[in-house]
Protein backbone atom coordinates (compact mmCIF):
# COMPACT_ATOMS: atom_id res chain seq x y z
CA UNK A 1 0.00 0.00 0.00
CA UNK A 2 1.15 3.57 -0.70
CA UNK A 3 3.21 5.11 2.11
CA UNK A 4 1.39 7.70 4.18
CA UNK A 5 2.81 11.04 5.28
CA UNK A 6 0.99 12.81 8.14
CA UNK A 7 1.74 16.46 8.83
CA UNK A 8 0.63 17.15 12.39
CA UNK A 9 0.09 20.64 13.75
CA UNK A 10 -1.93 23.79 13.86
CA UNK A 11 -1.19 26.39 11.19
CA UNK A 12 -2.55 29.16 13.39
CA UNK A 13 -0.04 28.50 16.16
CA UNK A 14 3.09 29.76 14.41
CA UNK A 15 5.80 27.09 14.47
CA UNK A 16 3.29 24.37 15.32
CA UNK A 17 2.33 24.63 11.64
CA UNK A 18 5.64 23.13 10.50
CA UNK A 19 4.17 19.62 10.11
CA UNK A 20 1.42 20.78 7.70
CA UNK A 21 3.97 23.00 5.92
CA UNK A 22 6.26 20.05 5.24
CA UNK A 23 3.22 17.99 4.21
CA UNK A 24 2.40 20.64 1.58
CA UNK A 25 5.88 20.28 0.09
CA UNK A 26 5.70 16.50 0.10
CA UNK A 27 2.41 16.70 -1.75
CA UNK A 28 4.04 18.88 -4.37
CA UNK A 29 7.19 16.85 -4.99
CA UNK A 30 5.74 13.37 -4.49
CA UNK A 31 2.13 13.42 -5.72
CA UNK A 32 2.23 9.62 -5.73
CA UNK A 33 2.25 9.50 -1.92
CA UNK A 34 -0.77 9.79 0.34
CA UNK A 35 -0.43 12.96 2.41
CA UNK A 36 -2.73 14.00 5.26
CA UNK A 37 -2.79 17.07 7.50
CA UNK A 38 -3.87 16.52 11.06
CA UNK A 39 -4.54 18.99 13.82
CA UNK A 40 -6.25 18.34 17.09
CA UNK A 41 -6.58 14.75 18.08
CA UNK A 42 -3.73 12.47 17.01
CA UNK A 43 -5.55 9.26 17.92
CA UNK A 44 -7.10 9.54 14.45
CA UNK A 45 -3.72 8.35 13.18
CA UNK A 46 -4.55 4.79 14.23
CA UNK A 47 -7.22 4.66 11.57
CA UNK A 48 -5.18 6.60 9.03
CA UNK A 49 -2.31 4.15 9.12
CA UNK A 50 -4.39 1.00 9.28
CA UNK A 51 -3.05 -1.39 6.61
CA UNK A 52 -0.01 0.79 5.77
CA UNK A 53 3.48 -0.68 5.62
CA UNK A 54 5.22 2.67 6.05
CA UNK A 55 4.04 5.84 7.77
CA UNK A 56 5.97 9.07 8.24
CA UNK A 57 4.69 11.56 10.81
CA UNK A 58 6.01 15.14 10.75
CA UNK A 59 5.51 17.24 13.85
CA UNK A 60 6.88 20.14 15.87
CA UNK A 61 9.07 19.06 18.80
CA UNK A 62 10.88 20.63 21.69
CA UNK A 63 13.79 18.53 22.93
CA UNK A 64 16.11 21.34 23.94
CA UNK A 65 18.11 21.22 20.69
CA UNK A 66 18.62 24.49 18.76
CA UNK A 67 15.53 25.83 17.01
CA UNK A 68 15.31 24.50 13.48
CA UNK A 69 17.11 21.23 14.24
CA UNK A 70 15.55 18.25 12.51
CA UNK A 71 15.22 14.85 14.16
CA UNK A 72 14.25 11.46 12.89
CA UNK A 73 13.05 8.51 14.96
CA UNK A 74 12.29 5.13 13.41
CA UNK A 75 10.27 2.31 14.91
CA UNK A 76 10.34 -1.07 13.14
CA UNK A 77 7.75 -3.55 14.38
CA UNK A 78 7.22 -1.33 17.40
CA UNK A 79 10.91 -1.15 18.42
CA UNK A 80 12.60 2.25 18.23
CA UNK A 81 16.03 2.44 16.59
CA UNK A 82 17.37 4.56 19.45
CA UNK A 83 15.67 6.45 22.25
CA UNK A 84 12.05 7.02 21.29
CA UNK A 85 10.80 10.52 20.50
CA UNK A 86 10.04 12.69 23.53
CA UNK A 87 6.81 11.95 25.30
CA UNK A 88 5.52 15.43 24.67
CA UNK A 89 6.13 15.80 20.99
CA UNK A 90 3.11 18.02 21.04
CA UNK A 91 0.23 18.54 23.37
CA UNK A 92 -2.55 18.06 20.91
CA UNK A 93 -5.45 16.52 22.69
CA UNK A 94 -4.01 13.07 22.26
CA UNK A 95 -0.48 13.88 21.19
CA UNK A 96 1.59 12.09 18.60
CA UNK A 97 3.63 10.15 21.11
CA UNK A 98 0.49 9.22 23.05
CA UNK A 99 -1.16 8.00 19.86
CA UNK A 100 1.92 5.91 19.04
CA UNK A 101 1.97 4.40 22.53
CA UNK A 102 -1.75 3.73 22.30
CA UNK A 103 -1.25 1.99 18.96
CA UNK A 104 1.56 -0.08 20.48
CA UNK A 105 -0.67 -1.11 23.40
CA UNK A 106 -3.30 -2.25 20.90
CA UNK A 107 -0.83 -3.88 18.44
CA UNK A 108 -1.83 -1.38 15.80
CA UNK A 109 1.51 0.18 14.85
CA UNK A 110 2.50 0.07 11.19
CA UNK A 111 5.51 -2.18 10.42
CA UNK A 112 7.66 0.90 9.86
CA UNK A 113 6.88 4.18 11.56
CA UNK A 114 9.09 7.23 11.11
CA UNK A 115 8.69 10.41 13.14
CA UNK A 116 10.35 13.51 11.72
CA UNK A 117 10.49 16.30 14.28
CA UNK A 118 11.43 19.93 13.77
CA UNK A 119 12.63 21.82 16.83
CA UNK A 120 10.36 24.83 17.33
CA UNK A 121 10.23 27.87 19.55
CA UNK A 122 7.27 30.15 18.85
CA UNK A 123 3.90 28.55 19.59
CA UNK A 124 1.98 31.79 19.90
CA UNK A 125 -1.25 32.61 18.13
CA UNK A 126 -0.89 33.56 14.48
CA UNK A 127 0.08 32.23 11.10
CA UNK A 128 3.58 31.78 9.70
CA UNK A 129 6.74 30.01 10.87
CA UNK A 130 9.58 31.76 12.66
CA UNK A 131 12.77 32.24 10.63
CA UNK A 132 14.82 29.31 11.89
CA UNK A 133 11.89 26.92 11.56
CA UNK A 134 11.00 28.14 8.06
CA UNK A 135 14.62 27.56 7.11
CA UNK A 136 14.43 23.99 8.44
CA UNK A 137 11.49 22.95 6.29
CA UNK A 138 13.65 21.78 3.37
CA UNK A 139 15.78 19.67 5.69
CA UNK A 140 12.67 18.07 7.16
CA UNK A 141 11.37 17.42 3.64
CA UNK A 142 14.64 15.63 2.79
CA UNK A 143 14.25 13.41 5.85
CA UNK A 144 10.70 12.52 4.78
CA UNK A 145 11.79 11.76 1.20
CA UNK A 146 14.73 9.64 2.42
CA UNK A 147 12.35 7.75 4.68
CA UNK A 148 9.93 6.85 1.93
CA UNK A 149 12.72 6.18 -0.61
CA UNK A 150 11.42 5.17 -4.01
CA UNK A 151 8.47 3.29 -2.57
CA UNK A 152 4.97 4.10 -3.55
Amino acid at each position, binding site marked *: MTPLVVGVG*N*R*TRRDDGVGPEVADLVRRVRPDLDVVEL*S*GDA*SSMLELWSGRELVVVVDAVRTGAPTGSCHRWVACSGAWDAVPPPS*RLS*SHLVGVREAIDLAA*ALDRLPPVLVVVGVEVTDLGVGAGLSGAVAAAVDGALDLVLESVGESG
Partner: protein
Amino acid sequence: MRETQGRVLDVAALARVEGEGAMRVRIDGDTVVGVELDIYEPPRFFEALLRGRGYEEPPDITARICGICPVAYQMSSSLAIEQICGVTVDGQLAALRRLLYCGEWIESHALHIYLLHAPDFLGYDGGIAMARDHRDVVERGLRLKQVGNRLMELVGGRAVHPVNVRVGGFYRLPDLDALRAMIPDLQWACGAALDTVSWVAGFDIPDHHGEWDLVSLAGDGEYPIMGRRIVTSAAPDVVPVEEFGAHAVEEHVAHSNALHASWDSRTYLVGPLARYSLNQHLLPPVAREAASAAGLGRECRNPFASIVVRAVELLAACTEALRLVREYEPPGAPSVPVVPRAGVGHGASEAPRGLLYHRYELDERGIVLDATIVPPTSQNQRAIERDLWQVAQAGVSLDDAALTARCEQAIRNYDPCISCATHELDLRIVRA
Protein backbone atom coordinates in the same frame (compact mmCIF):
# COMPACT_ATOMS: atom_id res chain seq x y z
CA MET B 1 9.90 22.79 45.45
CA ARG B 2 9.57 25.06 48.45
CA GLU B 3 8.72 28.70 48.71
CA THR B 4 9.60 30.74 51.72
CA GLN B 5 5.97 30.99 52.93
CA GLY B 6 4.93 27.42 52.22
CA ARG B 7 4.81 24.53 49.87
CA VAL B 8 4.30 24.70 46.14
CA LEU B 9 3.44 21.62 44.17
CA ASP B 10 4.10 22.14 40.52
CA VAL B 11 2.54 19.38 38.51
CA ALA B 12 2.92 21.10 35.18
CA ALA B 13 0.70 18.72 33.30
CA LEU B 14 -2.89 18.28 32.54
CA ALA B 15 -2.31 16.07 29.62
CA ARG B 16 -5.89 15.16 28.92
CA VAL B 17 -7.13 18.71 28.56
CA GLU B 18 -6.66 20.33 25.24
CA GLY B 19 -4.67 23.47 25.33
CA GLU B 20 -2.71 25.93 27.26
CA GLY B 21 -3.23 27.52 30.58
CA ALA B 22 -2.63 27.44 34.27
CA MET B 23 -4.41 26.63 37.48
CA ARG B 24 -3.35 27.55 40.96
CA VAL B 25 -5.04 26.43 44.16
CA ARG B 26 -3.95 28.28 47.29
CA ILE B 27 -4.59 26.65 50.65
CA ASP B 28 -4.09 28.22 54.06
CA GLY B 29 -4.20 25.53 56.75
CA ASP B 30 -7.41 23.63 56.06
CA THR B 31 -9.02 26.36 54.03
CA VAL B 32 -8.88 26.98 50.32
CA VAL B 33 -8.25 30.70 49.99
CA GLY B 34 -7.93 31.00 46.25
CA VAL B 35 -8.50 29.22 42.98
CA GLU B 36 -7.24 30.87 39.85
CA LEU B 37 -7.92 29.27 36.53
CA ASP B 38 -6.59 30.53 33.27
CA ILE B 39 -7.36 27.91 30.71
CA TYR B 40 -8.92 29.76 27.87
CA GLU B 41 -7.51 31.95 25.17
CA PRO B 42 -10.21 34.02 23.54
CA PRO B 43 -10.27 33.73 19.74
CA ARG B 44 -9.33 37.38 19.26
CA PHE B 45 -6.80 36.51 16.56
CA PHE B 46 -9.57 34.99 14.47
CA GLU B 47 -12.00 37.82 15.12
CA ALA B 48 -9.37 40.26 13.84
CA LEU B 49 -8.55 37.99 10.92
CA LEU B 50 -12.19 37.89 9.85
CA ARG B 51 -12.55 41.65 9.51
CA GLY B 52 -12.29 42.63 5.87
CA ARG B 53 -12.91 39.09 4.61
CA GLY B 54 -15.80 38.04 2.39
CA TYR B 55 -19.09 36.73 3.78
CA GLU B 56 -18.39 33.21 2.47
CA GLU B 57 -15.11 32.86 4.33
CA PRO B 58 -16.00 32.62 8.06
CA PRO B 59 -17.02 28.90 7.98
CA ASP B 60 -13.60 27.90 6.65
CA ILE B 61 -11.59 30.37 8.69
CA THR B 62 -13.29 29.72 12.02
CA ALA B 63 -13.18 25.94 11.51
CA ARG B 64 -9.45 26.32 12.09
CA ILE B 65 -10.00 27.48 15.66
CA CYS B 66 -10.51 23.95 16.88
CA GLY B 67 -9.38 20.59 15.53
CA ILE B 68 -11.96 18.83 17.69
CA CYS B 69 -15.08 20.83 16.92
CA PRO B 70 -14.68 22.50 13.50
CA VAL B 71 -18.29 21.72 12.53
CA ALA B 72 -19.58 23.79 15.44
CA TYR B 73 -17.64 26.81 14.18
CA GLN B 74 -18.82 26.22 10.62
CA MET B 75 -22.45 25.93 11.65
CA SER B 76 -22.60 28.88 14.06
CA SER B 77 -20.90 31.15 11.52
CA SER B 78 -23.08 29.96 8.62
CA LEU B 79 -26.25 30.49 10.64
CA ALA B 80 -25.23 34.03 11.56
CA ILE B 81 -24.39 35.02 7.99
CA GLU B 82 -27.50 33.36 6.59
CA GLN B 83 -29.57 35.42 9.00
CA ILE B 84 -28.05 38.62 7.62
CA CYS B 85 -28.68 37.52 4.05
CA GLY B 86 -32.26 36.44 4.78
CA VAL B 87 -31.60 32.80 3.90
CA THR B 88 -33.11 29.76 5.59
CA VAL B 89 -31.51 26.37 5.12
CA ASP B 90 -34.14 23.73 5.82
CA GLY B 91 -35.42 20.34 4.70
CA GLN B 92 -32.82 17.76 3.72
CA LEU B 93 -30.00 20.32 3.72
CA ALA B 94 -30.72 21.08 7.37
CA ALA B 95 -30.90 17.33 8.01
CA LEU B 96 -27.47 16.89 6.40
CA ARG B 97 -26.09 19.61 8.64
CA ARG B 98 -27.50 17.85 11.67
CA LEU B 99 -25.98 14.58 10.44
CA LEU B 100 -22.57 16.20 10.05
CA TYR B 101 -22.89 17.67 13.52
CA CYS B 102 -23.85 14.24 14.92
CA GLY B 103 -20.56 12.98 13.45
CA GLU B 104 -18.70 15.61 15.42
CA TRP B 105 -20.55 14.79 18.65
CA ILE B 106 -19.84 11.08 18.19
CA GLU B 107 -16.16 11.67 17.54
CA SER B 108 -15.67 14.18 20.33
CA HIS B 109 -17.72 12.40 22.99
CA ALA B 110 -16.20 8.97 22.21
CA LEU B 111 -12.72 10.44 22.50
CA HIS B 112 -13.42 12.20 25.76
CA ILE B 113 -15.28 9.34 27.41
CA TYR B 114 -12.89 6.56 26.46
CA LEU B 115 -9.44 8.07 26.24
CA LEU B 116 -9.56 11.17 28.42
CA HIS B 117 -12.10 10.83 31.21
CA ALA B 118 -12.64 7.11 31.92
CA PRO B 119 -9.02 6.63 33.06
CA ASP B 120 -9.75 9.01 35.96
CA PHE B 121 -12.52 6.77 37.23
CA LEU B 122 -10.64 3.50 36.72
CA GLY B 123 -7.41 4.65 38.34
CA TYR B 124 -5.15 4.94 35.30
CA ASP B 125 -2.75 7.70 34.35
CA GLY B 126 -4.27 7.84 30.91
CA GLY B 127 -5.85 6.01 28.03
CA ILE B 128 -2.68 4.14 27.08
CA ALA B 129 -2.31 2.45 30.45
CA MET B 130 -6.03 1.73 30.42
CA ALA B 131 -5.77 0.21 26.93
CA ARG B 132 -3.30 -2.40 28.16
CA ASP B 133 -5.84 -3.72 30.69
CA HIS B 134 -9.08 -2.92 28.89
CA ARG B 135 -8.20 -3.51 25.29
CA ASP B 136 -11.69 -4.45 24.08
CA VAL B 137 -13.23 -1.41 25.73
CA VAL B 138 -10.69 1.00 24.22
CA GLU B 139 -11.10 -0.64 20.81
CA ARG B 140 -14.85 -0.07 21.12
CA GLY B 141 -14.24 3.62 21.91
CA LEU B 142 -11.90 4.01 18.95
CA ARG B 143 -14.36 2.32 16.62
CA LEU B 144 -17.15 4.60 17.81
CA LYS B 145 -14.91 7.57 17.20
CA GLN B 146 -14.18 6.22 13.75
CA VAL B 147 -17.90 6.10 12.95
CA GLY B 148 -18.04 9.83 13.77
CA ASN B 149 -14.96 10.45 11.61
CA ARG B 150 -16.52 8.59 8.72
CA LEU B 151 -19.72 10.64 8.90
CA MET B 152 -17.65 13.82 8.87
CA GLU B 153 -15.72 12.55 5.85
CA LEU B 154 -18.86 11.63 3.92
CA VAL B 155 -20.82 14.79 4.62
CA GLY B 156 -18.06 17.27 5.43
CA GLY B 157 -15.53 16.21 2.83
CA ARG B 158 -12.92 15.16 5.35
CA ALA B 159 -12.76 14.22 9.01
CA VAL B 160 -10.52 17.02 10.22
CA HIS B 161 -11.51 20.53 9.24
CA PRO B 162 -14.32 19.59 6.86
CA VAL B 163 -14.09 21.51 3.60
CA ASN B 164 -17.54 20.85 2.16
CA VAL B 165 -19.53 23.32 4.28
CA ARG B 166 -20.54 26.68 2.85
CA VAL B 167 -22.88 29.48 3.72
CA GLY B 168 -26.23 28.25 2.36
CA GLY B 169 -25.45 24.53 2.65
CA PHE B 170 -22.72 22.42 1.06
CA TYR B 171 -20.45 22.53 -1.99
CA ARG B 172 -21.56 19.05 -3.03
CA LEU B 173 -23.98 16.46 -1.76
CA PRO B 174 -22.64 13.28 -0.17
CA ASP B 175 -22.59 10.07 -2.14
CA LEU B 176 -25.92 8.40 -1.47
CA ASP B 177 -24.61 4.83 -1.71
CA ALA B 178 -21.71 5.58 0.61
CA LEU B 179 -24.10 7.16 3.09
CA ARG B 180 -26.43 4.18 3.04
CA ALA B 181 -23.46 1.85 3.39
CA MET B 182 -22.95 3.48 6.81
CA ILE B 183 -26.18 1.97 8.14
CA PRO B 184 -24.62 -1.26 9.50
CA ASP B 185 -21.85 0.75 11.18
CA LEU B 186 -24.40 3.11 12.71
CA GLN B 187 -26.49 0.19 13.92
CA TRP B 188 -23.39 -1.20 15.58
CA ALA B 189 -22.62 2.27 17.01
CA CYS B 190 -26.07 2.51 18.61
CA GLY B 191 -25.46 -0.78 20.42
CA ALA B 192 -21.93 0.23 21.38
CA ALA B 193 -23.14 3.59 22.68
CA LEU B 194 -25.78 1.85 24.77
CA ASP B 195 -23.03 -0.37 26.18
CA THR B 196 -21.02 2.79 26.84
CA VAL B 197 -23.82 4.22 29.00
CA SER B 198 -23.99 1.00 31.03
CA TRP B 199 -20.19 0.93 31.35
CA VAL B 200 -19.76 4.47 32.69
CA ALA B 201 -22.87 4.22 34.88
CA GLY B 202 -20.98 1.56 36.83
CA PHE B 203 -18.12 3.91 37.71
CA ASP B 204 -17.64 5.16 41.24
CA ILE B 205 -18.77 8.75 40.70
CA PRO B 206 -17.98 11.30 43.42
CA ASP B 207 -20.87 13.27 44.84
CA HIS B 208 -20.87 16.92 43.95
CA HIS B 209 -23.51 19.56 43.36
CA GLY B 210 -22.62 22.38 41.02
CA GLU B 211 -24.06 25.74 41.93
CA TRP B 212 -24.50 27.56 38.67
CA ASP B 213 -27.27 28.35 36.24
CA LEU B 214 -27.61 26.17 33.17
CA VAL B 215 -27.82 27.60 29.66
CA SER B 216 -28.39 25.80 26.37
CA LEU B 217 -30.20 26.08 23.10
CA ALA B 218 -33.86 25.12 23.22
CA GLY B 219 -34.74 22.03 21.26
CA ASP B 220 -37.36 22.53 18.62
CA GLY B 221 -39.01 19.14 18.84
CA GLU B 222 -35.62 17.45 18.93
CA TYR B 223 -32.56 17.48 21.17
CA PRO B 224 -30.85 20.82 20.46
CA ILE B 225 -27.87 21.06 18.13
CA MET B 226 -28.68 24.16 16.07
CA GLY B 227 -31.35 26.67 16.94
CA ARG B 228 -32.40 30.23 17.45
CA ARG B 229 -33.73 30.13 21.01
CA ILE B 230 -31.90 29.82 24.31
CA VAL B 231 -33.26 28.43 27.57
CA THR B 232 -31.88 28.75 31.08
CA SER B 233 -32.53 27.14 34.43
CA ALA B 234 -32.85 30.56 36.05
CA ALA B 235 -35.88 31.94 34.24
CA PRO B 236 -38.80 30.50 32.32
CA ASP B 237 -38.40 32.95 29.45
CA VAL B 238 -36.95 31.79 26.18
CA VAL B 239 -34.20 34.10 24.94
CA PRO B 240 -33.81 34.70 21.20
CA VAL B 241 -30.24 34.11 20.09
CA GLU B 242 -30.14 37.77 18.96
CA GLU B 243 -30.26 38.73 22.64
CA PHE B 244 -27.33 36.53 23.67
CA GLY B 245 -25.09 39.55 24.07
CA ALA B 246 -27.59 41.30 26.33
CA HIS B 247 -27.42 38.43 28.84
CA ALA B 248 -23.94 36.94 28.48
CA VAL B 249 -21.34 39.45 29.58
CA GLU B 250 -17.62 38.80 29.39
CA GLU B 251 -15.29 40.64 31.71
CA HIS B 252 -11.60 40.64 32.48
CA VAL B 253 -10.42 39.18 35.76
CA ALA B 254 -7.06 40.08 37.22
CA HIS B 255 -5.43 36.64 37.24
CA SER B 256 -6.27 35.58 33.71
CA ASN B 257 -5.77 36.63 30.12
CA ALA B 258 -9.14 35.12 29.45
CA LEU B 259 -12.50 36.74 29.83
CA HIS B 260 -14.91 35.37 32.41
CA ALA B 261 -18.54 35.23 31.36
CA SER B 262 -21.73 35.62 33.38
CA TRP B 263 -25.39 35.33 32.36
CA ASP B 264 -27.50 38.07 33.86
CA SER B 265 -24.63 38.63 36.31
CA ARG B 266 -24.74 35.01 37.49
CA THR B 267 -22.29 32.15 37.02
CA TYR B 268 -23.54 29.74 34.39
CA LEU B 269 -22.68 26.51 32.67
CA VAL B 270 -23.07 25.37 29.09
CA GLY B 271 -22.47 21.87 27.73
CA PRO B 272 -23.81 18.35 28.25
CA LEU B 273 -25.14 18.91 31.80
CA ALA B 274 -27.03 22.03 30.69
CA ARG B 275 -28.32 20.49 27.47
CA TYR B 276 -29.46 17.36 29.26
CA SER B 277 -31.07 19.10 32.21
CA LEU B 278 -32.96 21.57 30.03
CA ASN B 279 -33.88 19.24 27.15
CA GLN B 280 -33.92 15.73 28.60
CA HIS B 281 -37.50 15.24 27.40
CA LEU B 282 -36.35 15.71 23.79
CA LEU B 283 -33.83 12.87 23.77
CA PRO B 284 -34.65 9.92 21.49
CA PRO B 285 -36.60 7.39 23.61
CA VAL B 286 -33.73 4.87 23.68
CA ALA B 287 -31.39 7.52 25.09
CA ARG B 288 -33.98 8.70 27.62
CA GLU B 289 -34.48 5.13 28.80
CA ALA B 290 -30.73 4.56 29.00
CA ALA B 291 -30.36 7.74 31.06
CA SER B 292 -33.02 6.57 33.44
CA ALA B 293 -31.47 3.10 33.73
CA ALA B 294 -28.12 4.77 34.42
CA GLY B 295 -29.65 6.59 37.37
CA LEU B 296 -29.78 10.07 35.88
CA GLY B 297 -32.74 12.14 37.01
CA ARG B 298 -34.47 14.83 35.01
CA GLU B 299 -31.67 17.18 35.94
CA CYS B 300 -27.98 16.47 36.51
CA ARG B 301 -25.83 18.98 38.37
CA ASN B 302 -22.97 16.68 39.29
CA PRO B 303 -20.03 17.49 36.99
CA PHE B 304 -18.42 14.13 37.81
CA ALA B 305 -21.52 12.49 36.28
CA SER B 306 -20.93 14.40 33.06
CA ILE B 307 -19.30 11.25 31.68
CA VAL B 308 -22.67 9.50 31.98
CA VAL B 309 -24.49 12.41 30.36
CA ARG B 310 -21.92 12.46 27.57
CA ALA B 311 -22.51 8.73 27.01
CA VAL B 312 -26.28 9.38 26.82
CA GLU B 313 -25.62 12.12 24.27
CA LEU B 314 -23.33 9.76 22.36
CA LEU B 315 -26.22 7.31 22.15
CA ALA B 316 -28.57 10.11 21.11
CA ALA B 317 -26.17 11.23 18.36
CA CYS B 318 -25.73 7.67 17.02
CA THR B 319 -29.50 7.12 17.07
CA GLU B 320 -30.11 10.46 15.37
CA ALA B 321 -27.45 9.79 12.74
CA LEU B 322 -28.98 6.42 11.91
CA ARG B 323 -32.41 8.00 11.56
CA LEU B 324 -31.11 10.84 9.38
CA VAL B 325 -29.22 8.48 7.06
CA ARG B 326 -32.26 6.23 6.68
CA GLU B 327 -34.55 9.16 5.94
CA TYR B 328 -32.14 11.03 3.68
CA GLU B 329 -33.32 11.90 0.20
CA PRO B 330 -30.95 14.03 -1.88
CA PRO B 331 -32.24 17.58 -2.24
CA GLY B 332 -32.29 19.27 -5.65
CA ALA B 333 -29.21 21.37 -4.98
CA PRO B 334 -26.35 21.20 -2.46
CA SER B 335 -26.98 24.75 -1.28
CA VAL B 336 -29.42 27.61 -1.48
CA PRO B 337 -28.28 30.84 -3.16
CA VAL B 338 -26.96 33.50 -0.80
CA VAL B 339 -26.82 37.12 -1.87
CA PRO B 340 -24.90 39.35 0.52
CA ARG B 341 -26.42 42.38 2.13
CA ALA B 342 -25.58 44.71 4.95
CA GLY B 343 -26.64 43.86 8.46
CA VAL B 344 -25.93 42.09 11.72
CA GLY B 345 -26.53 38.37 12.25
CA HIS B 346 -26.33 35.94 15.15
CA GLY B 347 -25.75 32.19 15.05
CA ALA B 348 -25.54 29.59 17.78
CA SER B 349 -25.09 25.87 17.90
CA GLU B 350 -24.28 23.26 20.50
CA ALA B 351 -20.64 22.27 20.17
CA PRO B 352 -19.88 19.04 22.05
CA ARG B 353 -18.68 21.26 24.93
CA GLY B 354 -21.63 23.63 24.83
CA LEU B 355 -23.21 26.64 23.22
CA LEU B 356 -21.04 28.39 20.63
CA TYR B 357 -22.19 31.88 19.67
CA HIS B 358 -21.12 33.91 16.63
CA ARG B 359 -22.10 37.45 15.65
CA TYR B 360 -21.16 39.14 12.37
CA GLU B 361 -21.67 42.52 10.85
CA LEU B 362 -21.48 42.76 7.05
CA ASP B 363 -21.49 45.73 4.71
CA GLU B 364 -23.60 45.78 1.54
CA ARG B 365 -20.86 43.94 -0.43
CA GLY B 366 -20.75 41.17 2.16
CA ILE B 367 -17.45 42.25 3.69
CA VAL B 368 -17.10 41.39 7.39
CA LEU B 369 -16.96 44.62 9.39
CA ASP B 370 -17.01 42.99 12.80
CA ALA B 371 -16.97 39.47 14.27
CA THR B 372 -17.57 38.19 17.78
CA ILE B 373 -17.07 34.55 18.79
CA VAL B 374 -17.99 33.29 22.26
CA PRO B 375 -16.96 29.63 22.65
CA PRO B 376 -18.25 27.26 25.32
CA THR B 377 -15.06 26.91 27.32
CA SER B 378 -14.76 30.66 27.84
CA GLN B 379 -18.34 30.70 29.12
CA ASN B 380 -17.61 27.82 31.47
CA GLN B 381 -14.40 29.15 32.91
CA ARG B 382 -16.05 30.87 35.86
CA ALA B 383 -18.17 27.81 36.68
CA ILE B 384 -15.12 25.53 36.51
CA GLU B 385 -13.26 27.84 38.86
CA ARG B 386 -16.13 27.88 41.34
CA ASP B 387 -16.38 24.12 41.10
CA LEU B 388 -12.68 23.62 41.68
CA TRP B 389 -12.89 25.70 44.80
CA GLN B 390 -15.50 23.32 46.23
CA VAL B 391 -13.65 20.21 45.07
CA ALA B 392 -10.36 21.44 46.52
CA GLN B 393 -12.02 22.34 49.83
CA ALA B 394 -13.73 18.95 50.05
CA GLY B 395 -10.40 17.24 49.42
CA VAL B 396 -8.19 19.56 51.47
CA SER B 397 -7.07 16.71 53.73
CA LEU B 398 -5.73 14.71 50.76
CA ASP B 399 -2.02 14.83 50.07
CA ASP B 400 -0.89 17.05 47.22
CA ALA B 401 -0.69 14.26 44.66
CA ALA B 402 -4.19 13.01 45.40
CA LEU B 403 -5.65 16.50 45.56
CA THR B 404 -4.00 17.43 42.29
CA ALA B 405 -5.41 14.32 40.64
CA ARG B 406 -8.88 15.16 41.94
CA CYS B 407 -8.60 18.74 40.65
CA GLU B 408 -7.44 17.49 37.26
CA GLN B 409 -10.39 15.15 37.11
CA ALA B 410 -12.69 18.03 38.04
CA ILE B 411 -11.31 20.09 35.15
CA ARG B 412 -11.73 17.19 32.75
CA ASN B 413 -15.39 16.95 33.82
CA TYR B 414 -15.89 19.95 31.55
CA ASP B 415 -13.88 18.64 28.58
CA PRO B 416 -12.38 22.09 28.21
CA CYS B 417 -11.10 22.94 24.78
CA ILE B 418 -8.58 25.66 24.36
CA SER B 419 -8.42 26.14 20.61
CA CYS B 420 -5.88 23.46 19.80
CA ALA B 421 -3.23 25.23 21.77
CA THR B 422 0.15 23.65 22.12
CA HIS B 423 1.18 23.91 25.75
CA GLU B 424 0.30 21.87 28.75
CA LEU B 425 -1.53 23.20 31.74
CA ASP B 426 0.55 24.27 34.69
CA LEU B 427 -1.35 23.13 37.76
CA ARG B 428 -0.10 24.27 41.14
CA ILE B 429 -1.30 23.68 44.64
CA VAL B 430 0.16 26.18 47.08
CA ARG B 431 -0.13 25.54 50.80
CA ALA B 432 0.68 28.51 52.98
